[in-house]
């Protein structure tokens, strides 16, 4: 995925920095708590939420089960409607296709609608290398781009920034990219939004090429759907002469009617609105309305590898709503950057190690970036059992085993760095299958209990650095039970 994330440290180390950053903690706490309560209220308005969630899950599962057929159907429908379909097996292929299409227009700048797929493949960097400037037009993406920063949230990539920091970025950076920020810009959100409006207006009005992703692609009609709030999406989708949409192959839904499920669940799950301000739907090209040329780039980039995993494939149901990030207590404290991917939070912890594999230090650490509390699964509008996939990926990390990488079946070796843990788990298993050994260990602990410290040296500090150890009792329960037959002897 994005080159900007290469060489990221493992999650625990990155998270340690974030936990100590009080500004970041405050920003994330404020933003996620605001949206958490609002989401709960928006969802509670629909008394058929559980049925919508189940239908969303079933639509996605059915599509994935027959993905080859639906991909071909998309290709036929989009082509029939006047669009051109391209296929990209990986990020390099997708970037090459888009760069070539832009070059063919003779343009050297493009406007972009916020799109996770193009973030994932680091399209902006690839275009820059070919002399094409890509302007992000979503407010949060603009903040990230101007601040030379990395995204930290799926829906609100600049969630780690508060209004004061955003004002400072606008003041110092906007002039380098185009229209400067107004004099005396304050940190009120309305003024910041206005500054973005003015800054981007000139870019929208002169843009000849727009680049987008899509939230949904309807196979039977060839219709693409972009769900947004600000109107930057509409600008990029309708004003340019050429539109290029890069879409992951898992974004397909079979039928037009399927949108009735997701247009109810997505806005309520993401921005906690009954409906987001703008949704655009287009099918190929329309005479004298919108772009004259439309290209759809269908992106694999690890998705078929994910599809090959019978437990992990449910991650492909994801509609990128961000509800799991907003409710996650680990995300709230670690922040999005610690996940080392454009996909942070619980969904990122199961998506990145599948799309990229578990070979790197960061990807091997992501399945452990969760207390398995299950809050993510509870709010997921397509019922992805994120804890189940996390545990499954932990197994892949420590035990290795069969997997598919780049379309090829491979047998993964157990990851490094788990030798001591593996030995401990095996030792525990040995003791737990021999109650006599367990009992001997318990008794030893009880007899030496006065010698036990409340804090531990070395690796034990991971526990006792912040928590006292529990006191070991005078005898384990099983000794009391055997001594008193469960208190029946009257002994205490």
């Amino acid at each position, binding site marked *: 995925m994005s080159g900007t994330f290469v060489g990221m440290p493992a999650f*625990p180390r990155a998270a340690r920095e974030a936990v*100590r950053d009080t500004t970041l903690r405050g920003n994330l706490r404020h933003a996620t708590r605001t949206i958490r309560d609002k989401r709960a209220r928006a969802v509670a308005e629909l008394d058929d939420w559980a049925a919508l969630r189940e239908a969303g899950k079933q639509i996605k599962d059915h599509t994935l089960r027959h993905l080859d057929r639906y991909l071909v159907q998309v290709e036929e429908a989009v082509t029939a409607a006047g669009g051109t379909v391209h296929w990209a097996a990986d990020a390099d292929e997708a970037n090459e296709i888009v760069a070539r299409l832009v070059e063919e227009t003779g343009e050297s700048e493009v406007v972009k609608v916020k799109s996770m797929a193009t973030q994932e493949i680091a399209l902006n960097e690839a275009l820059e290398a070919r002399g094409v400037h890509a302007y992000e037009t979503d407010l949060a993406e603009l903040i990230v781009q101007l601040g030379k920063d990395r995204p930290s949230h799926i829906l609100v990539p600049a969630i780690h920034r508060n209004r004061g920091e955003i004002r400072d970025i606008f003041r110092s950076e906007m002039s380098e990219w185009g229209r400067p920020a107004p004099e005396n810009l304050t940190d009120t959100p309305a003024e910041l939004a206005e500054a973005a409006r003015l800054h981007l207006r000139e870019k929208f009005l002169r843009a000849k090429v727009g680049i987008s992703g899509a939230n949904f692609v309807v196979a039977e009609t060839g219709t693409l759907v972009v769900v947004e709030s600000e109107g930057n999406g509409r600008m990029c989708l309708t004003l340019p002469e050429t539109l290029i949409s890069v879409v992951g192959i898992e974004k397909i839904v079979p039928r037009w009617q399927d949108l009735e499920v997701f247009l109810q669940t997505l806005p309520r799950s993401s921005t906690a609105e009954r409906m987001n301000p703008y949704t655009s739907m287009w099918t190929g090209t329309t005479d004298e309305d919108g772009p004259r040329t439309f290209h759809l780039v269908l992106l694999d980039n690890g998705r078929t590898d994910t599809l090959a995993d019978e437990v992990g494939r449910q991650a492909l149901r994801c509609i990128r709503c961000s509800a799991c990030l907003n409710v996650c207590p680990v995300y709230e404290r670690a922040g999005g950057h610690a996940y080392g991917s454009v996909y942070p939070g619980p969904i990122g912890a199961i998506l990145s190690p599948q799309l990229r594999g578990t070979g790197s230090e960061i990807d091997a650490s992501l399945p452990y970036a969760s207390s398995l509390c299950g*809050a993510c699964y509870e709010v997921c509008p397509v019922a992805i059992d994120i804890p*189940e996939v996390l545990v499954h990926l932990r197994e892949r990390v420590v035990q290795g085993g069969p997997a598919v990488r780049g379309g090829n079946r491979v047998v993964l070796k157990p990851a490094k760095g788990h030798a001591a843990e593996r030995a401990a788990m095996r030792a525990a298993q040995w003791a737990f299958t021999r109650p006599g050994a367990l009992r001997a260990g318990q008794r030893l602990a009880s007899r030496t209990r006065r010698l036990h410290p409340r804090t531990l040296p070395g690796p034990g500090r991971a526990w006792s650095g*912040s928590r006292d150890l529990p006191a070991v*009792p005078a005898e384990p329960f099983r000794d009391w039970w055997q001594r008193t037959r469960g208190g029946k002897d009257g002994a205490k």
Partner: protein
Amino acid sequence: MRVALFLTCVNDTLYPDTGRAVVRLLTRLGVEVDFPTAQTCCGQAHYNTGYRHEAEPLARRFADVFAGYEAIVTPSGSCGAMVRELYPRMGERARAEGRGDTLAAVLAPVVPKTYELTEFLVDVLGVTDVGAYYPHTVTYHPTCHGLRSLGLGDRPRRLLEAVKGLELVELPGAEECCGFGGTFAVKNSDVSAAMGADKVRNAESTGADVLCAADNSCLMHIGGTMARLRTGMRPVHIAEILASTEEAVAA
């Protein structure tokens, strides 16, 4: 009714008071309790850390030890969830790995008759007033696996509300994880500690003397944090509150 107490390895080793409380409580309610001493561990820590294959012998052992009982009661939401939610999944995975139906068949009998303590009291025995007396201000933390995997709902709250002398106060952010998470507590100790500290601050803000939960592993983390932060509160397992009577008041 004759039931088996599945105490869990953590309670057996570190929290025998909870085990004694369960025995006292159930006996008082007319239940004959047995503690099969061949029991050890359900395998949850192995399973959730990625050692599913190492967890399998422990699950088989559990099924073997407890198969003969009418009901299996455990004072742990997460170990209860391990049996009820994850044992069937272990069976499915073994089948998917081409190892046949044996594991699924061995584990299946114990799954439906395993109950977390508060479920057993409310659903099986049909009681909410267990005749307890506990003269303290208490706040209740619903632990994640009890809350979300087992769906304990308001059962613990109903039991606590019926305890004489007990004042129950609302815990802000109650449904948010305390940060224990098994091996998460050491693998991601900084985030775990931050979550624990927030939980303890919320608990302190209630003015309660006692933070109560139905899982001692979470209470070990919360209690260890309380001690380190030098709060005046203490963690108490719900079984110890419910077992307490006017004749024998628990601390």
